[in-house]
Structures are given as C-alpha cells and as structure tokens.
C-alpha cells in the first residue's frame, strides 16, 4: 500500500467514524434528513467563500459551508413555525433552494477565467476521496477530535435532550443551546466530509452507521461506540476496494466488470459498503433482525402445533384416564384444522421426542407426554375459566379465544390465574373440568382399539 492510500484510508475511516457517532443522535431524534439538508445547503456557502476569498482555501470554504448549512437548518425551523408547512416539505423546499443557489453560484465561478478548476467545486458535489492530501487528513483529525470531545463531555445532556426534551427543559437544561451544539457539531463534521464523499453521499455516512448500530444494542452508549466502528469500517473497506488493494491481495479484481473497469470512485464504494453492513444487520441481528424474528415466529408455530397435539390427545383420552388409549389420526383430524400429512408428521416428530407412542391405529400419549399434556390442559382450562368469569366471554366461544393465547402465557401468569381460582375454592394442581363440552366422536378410543 502506498503512502497516499494510507492517507486516504485514515481520512475516510476517521470521517466515517465520527459521522457515525453524531449521526446516531440524528437517527434517534428522527432528524435523519438533517444530514441531507446540511450537505446540500453547504454548497452555496462553499461558492460564496471562494468568491470572497478569490482562491481555494480549505478552512475558509468549510467555514462558508458551515454557515449556510446551519442557515438552512434554521430556515427549516422558521418555515415550520411560521407557516403551516410540515417539516418534511420544508426540508425538501429549503434543501433544493439552497442547492439550486449553489449550482448557480458555481456556474458563475466556472465562467470566470480558469475559476472552475481552481475552485475544485466538482469534488464537493461528487466527492473525491482519492484526492485527499496529508493536510486534509490533519484537518479531519482535528475536527473529529473536537466533535468526539463534545459528545463525550455532553453525553448525559445529549441523552436527556434526545429522549425527553420537555423533561430536560423542566430540569433547567438550556435545550436550545444544547440543540445548537449538537447540530453545529453535526454540521462541522458534514462539511468536513464533503470533499471526500460529496454532497449526495454525505447523508448516508451520517445515517447508515447509526441505523445499523441500533439493530445490535439496546443502550445509547454502546450504540454510539458501535456506530463509530460501523462508520469506520466502510471507510476502510471502500478505500481498499477503490485503491485496488483488495485486488492485490486476492490476485484478481472483485469489482472488475469486463476488462477495463478499475479505478472506481471511493465515496460511492464507502457508502455501498455501509449499505452492505446495514443489510446484513437487517437480516441477521439478534432479536431485531428479520431472520431472528422469522425464526421466533416459526418456533411459536411449531410449539403451538406440538402443544395442540398433546392437548387434543389428552382430551380425547380423558374419559379413560389413567389408561392411555390409542387415538386414530382420523379422529385427530376432526378436532384440529390439520391436513392428514401434517398430523402424521406431527405424530412422528412427537414420538421421536418421546412424548407420543405410535400405534398401528394412530397415536397415544407416552408416560412423559401425559404429564406434559396434563399441564397444558390445566393452563388452557384455567385461562378459559378466567375468560368466562372475568371477561364475560360465552363458554362456547372460549375455547378458541384461549387457544390463541395459551401458548404465550408465561409461568407467572399461570400461577396468578391459579391463585385467583384457588381463592374461589377452585382446584389446585388438579386439572379442572372443562367449562364447555368437549366434542368426542362416539366410542372414542375403543373404536381404534377394536379395529
């Protein structure tokens, strides 16, 4: 890796990291569009600064960008407060107005003699990370350090401001000033990042890491740290891909579509790497991820099916307990909305689990299955009685209502139900009578046995 690649790598990673940390607050406060607004509104500031200074001065131009960026944010607030325009519409209007003004100004500059090339304005719109020099990285490092110091010092204040601004105000925090400090820091980071990733992609650098980090943690502190890491990683990956370093390691270029395609721009690759991390989290994060949620839903469905089989077997065997008569599969089908193959498969699975014994006619409960079924039936009936007595649900409707809920009832609730029913002189531990008639085909049990 060349020295220049190292420069770009450090610059983009630092930038991604600090943008990620500050972006968390924007995401959590539902102000994700502020990043977009800031970066677009920065353009006229860049142009004005160039026109005033007459030369390309990094700090000066960033100062101009910072000013118009914040002016844009302020203007949105004013438009929302004084007209009936909603916030999203106001952001759209201000963003495009400022960006339009910026484009006009940049044409003015370009029409000056040799102005366009001198200003390097193109790089602010599309970003040109590969053009980063040591001085830019030093500047980025300074801004990042300052921004992180602000976040670390004001962590507690930013936390209460983001979670409950009204409460923060009653406690005497100057919420407007804190808000300005937060937005100002965000604006500073945004304009610093513009030369590297450009106006359009900067918003993604702010939003993606925070949105990704939220999938993995339930606390603000860890979320900020994680977001910093998740911001740095795409910076690193994107730079390495763009500089062809990855191709060097692999011996081939993973991004080569056809014979000519190399030298892909760094900024878009950074953003796409960030998107890849986001997609990975959407799918695979524990609890919040899609796979985890589908898995939980599938588990609930399978638990439900297994518990229903046990309970149905129990209720069909009930008149002959403690005998455990065999029940025909056909009979199970009259009680449950199962297809024959589902019922057979379920029986096979449960016999593998040792809860059911397969017989030539169908199935019967095993010893341990009986114990488990007893518990399930008890929960079901306790819940039914509760619904009838406390919720005034008709006894002939209660079976289905109980069915939907009982698989989700935890130990605590079942105990509480028992407590209540015991207080009314109901049975403890024993399986209570069903409050409604259980439809059993005539000669149940025996039918399958005699056959």
């Amino acid at each position, binding site marked *: 890796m060349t020295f220049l690649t190292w420069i770009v790598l450090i610059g983009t990673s630092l930038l991604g990291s600090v943008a990620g940390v500050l972006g968390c607050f924007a995401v*959590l406060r*539902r102000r994700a569009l502020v990043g977009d607004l800031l970066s677009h509104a920065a353009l006229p500031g860049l142009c004005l600064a160039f026109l005033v200074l007459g030369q390309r001065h990094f700090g000066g131009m960033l100062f101009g960008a910072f000013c118009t960026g914040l002016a844009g944010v302020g203007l949105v607030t004013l438009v929302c407060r004084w007209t009936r325009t909603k916030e999203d519409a106001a952001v759209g209007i201000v963003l495009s107005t400022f960006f339009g003004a910026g484009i006009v100004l940049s044409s003015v500059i370009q029409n000056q003699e040799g102005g366009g090339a001198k200003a390097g304005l193109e790089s602010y719109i599309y970003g040109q990370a590969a053009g980063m020099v040591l001085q830019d990285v030093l500047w980025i490092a300074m801004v990042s350090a300052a921004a992180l110091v602000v976040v670390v*010092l*004001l*962590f*507690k*204040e930013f*936390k*209460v401001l*983001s*979670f*409950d601004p*009204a*409460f923060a*105000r*009653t*406690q*005497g*925090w100057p919420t407007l000033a804190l808000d300005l400090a937060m937005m100002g820091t965000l604006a500073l980071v945004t304009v610093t990042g513009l030369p590297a990733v450009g106006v359009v992609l900067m918003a993604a650098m702010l939003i993606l890491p925070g949105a990704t980090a*939220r999938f993995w*943690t*339930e*606390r*603000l502190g860890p*979320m900020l740290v994680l977001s910093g890491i998740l911001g740095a990683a795409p910076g690193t990956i994107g730079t390495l891909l763009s500089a062809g370093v990855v191709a060097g390691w692999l011996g081939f270029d993973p991004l080569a579509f056809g014979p000519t395609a190399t030298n892909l721009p760094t900024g878009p690759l950074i953003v796409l790497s960030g998107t890849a991390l986001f997609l990975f989290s959407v799918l695979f994060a524990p609890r919040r991820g899609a796979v985890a949620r589908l898995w939980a839903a599938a588990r609930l469905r399978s638990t439900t099916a297994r518990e229903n089989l046990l309970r149905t077997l129990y209720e069909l065997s009930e008149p002959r307990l403690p005998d455990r008569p065999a029940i025909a599969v056909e009979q199970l089908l009259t009680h449950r909305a199962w297809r024959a193959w589902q019922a057979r498969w379920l029986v096979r699975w449960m016999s593998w689990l040792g809860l059911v014994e397969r017989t030539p006619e169908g199935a019967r409960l095993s010893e341990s299955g009986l114990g488990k079924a007893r518990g399930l039936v008890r929960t079901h009936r306790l819940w039914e009685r509760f619904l009838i007595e406390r919720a005034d649900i008709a006894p002939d409707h209660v079976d289905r209502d109980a069915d939907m809920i009982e698989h989700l009832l935890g130990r605590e609730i079942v105990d509480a139900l028992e407590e209540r029913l015991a207080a009314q002189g109901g049975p403890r531990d024993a399986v209570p009578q069903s409050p409604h008639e259980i439809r059993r085909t005539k000669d149940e049990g025996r039918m399958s046995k005699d056959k």
Partner: protein
Amino acid sequence: MPPPPLEIHDMTVAYHRKPVLWDIDLTVPEGSLVGIVGPNGAGKSTALISVLGLIPLASGRVEIYGKPYARQRHQVGYVPQRESVDWDFPVTAMDVVLMGTYGRLGWIRRPGAAERHAARLCLAQVGMEAQADRQIRQLSGGQQQRVFLARALAQDARIYFMDEPFAGVDASTEQAIVRLLQALRDGGKTVIVVHHDLQTVADYFDHVILLNMRLIASGPTATTFTHENLHKAYGGRLTILDEAAEAVRRGPAP
C-alpha cells in the same frame, strides 16, 4: 406565613395566539394531593406545562414557594404524559430513572455509584427493581408509567407535577400509584395531578382544581367537588369564550 408551594396569578395561555386558558388565579396548600379536573380540551395539561415553563404565558405569573419557577427547579419533579416520548429509544428503565438525578449533577458530571443507588431505591419504591435493566419498549404500559414516576422520585423534589399518571394503566397499577402519591403527601410533599376520571376524584384527592378554559373552582375536595361546580365545568363550554378565542387567533378584521 411561609409561601405556598404553588401560586398562580392571572395566568393566560395561548397557542398560536389563540387563548386556551383565561385568567387562572389560584393557590395550592402545602402537603396536599391535588387533582386538576375538567372535560377534554379544558386545558388541564396546558395548565400544567405552562406552570413548568414549557410554553410561554401570554400574561400573568407563576410562583413556586414564592419564587419564579426558573429559580426553583430543584424543588420540582415532573411526570410527563407517557405518549410524549419514543419508547423505542435505546435506554433501560435504570437509565431513565437516572435522568432524574441529572438536574442535581449539573454540567458534564456523570451519575456515579451514589446516583445509581438512589435510582435503584426509586425503582424499588414503584416495584420495578426486577426490570431495571430492561429496554423500555419491553415494559408494559403500567410499568412504563412506573418508570416515569421513579424518575420523578429520583428528582427528590418538594412539589411534583404529574400529567395523567393513570392513563392506560391497569387497576392494580393505579392503586399502587395512588398509594405512592399518598405516601409522598404524608411525607410533606405536594403532588399535583392532571386527572380525568371523575369517579375516583373524591377518593384520591384532598384538593381539587376544576378547569374548563377558565378556573371553575379550586379548594378542598369536600367543598369544591360539588354537583354545582361539576355542572359548571362539564355543562358545555362557554361558546362565547370559544368565539372570542377564535377572533383573537384570526386577528383584526380586514
């Protein structure tokens, strides 16, 4: 005579120039449990947040223990409406309760062992110790309300303002909250509660403030929560006030 915990003089409040509360004038006695009662849209919550300085007064002034609110913040605890925050925010019940100590801590200092201990005690007072480390979305409505109460307790105040603390909680949580409020009162604190269930007013509160855009009555429950006053508060809004408010909002006729 020591200054009362809350004194409101001629308070008028307007939203977008439209007055929603006219000329409220009242005093709340120390060590009482006070209910603010009135029909929907009567301005109960507005009255509460105006006193707390969250919206500017069009006129009048508010005094807490004889001084303006801005100088008495450390004496005040606040429980906002439960819907006012995003419960998906990445904080635990403990984190939220710790926020109650932020006012005392001041700038930059973080809550330490002492604050954690205090917050844990507050959680215990509302019966939520076991849920301290849960993210707040995973709590039931009643539990979320208890977390807000615990945060107010952590503020260690002399006067508490609560905006519908019984909204959307089950009967047993409501009882637990009432007992807590009574314990606060018995400990010499003043508790002011926006409340909308007329059935329970006489049981819960010592002092009642009846509002309907203007002050209907304010005083001890026994003498204030009367049929006559209720009829005044709930017997329809004063149309003329509504019309006047609308006229103010529209501004001078062209």
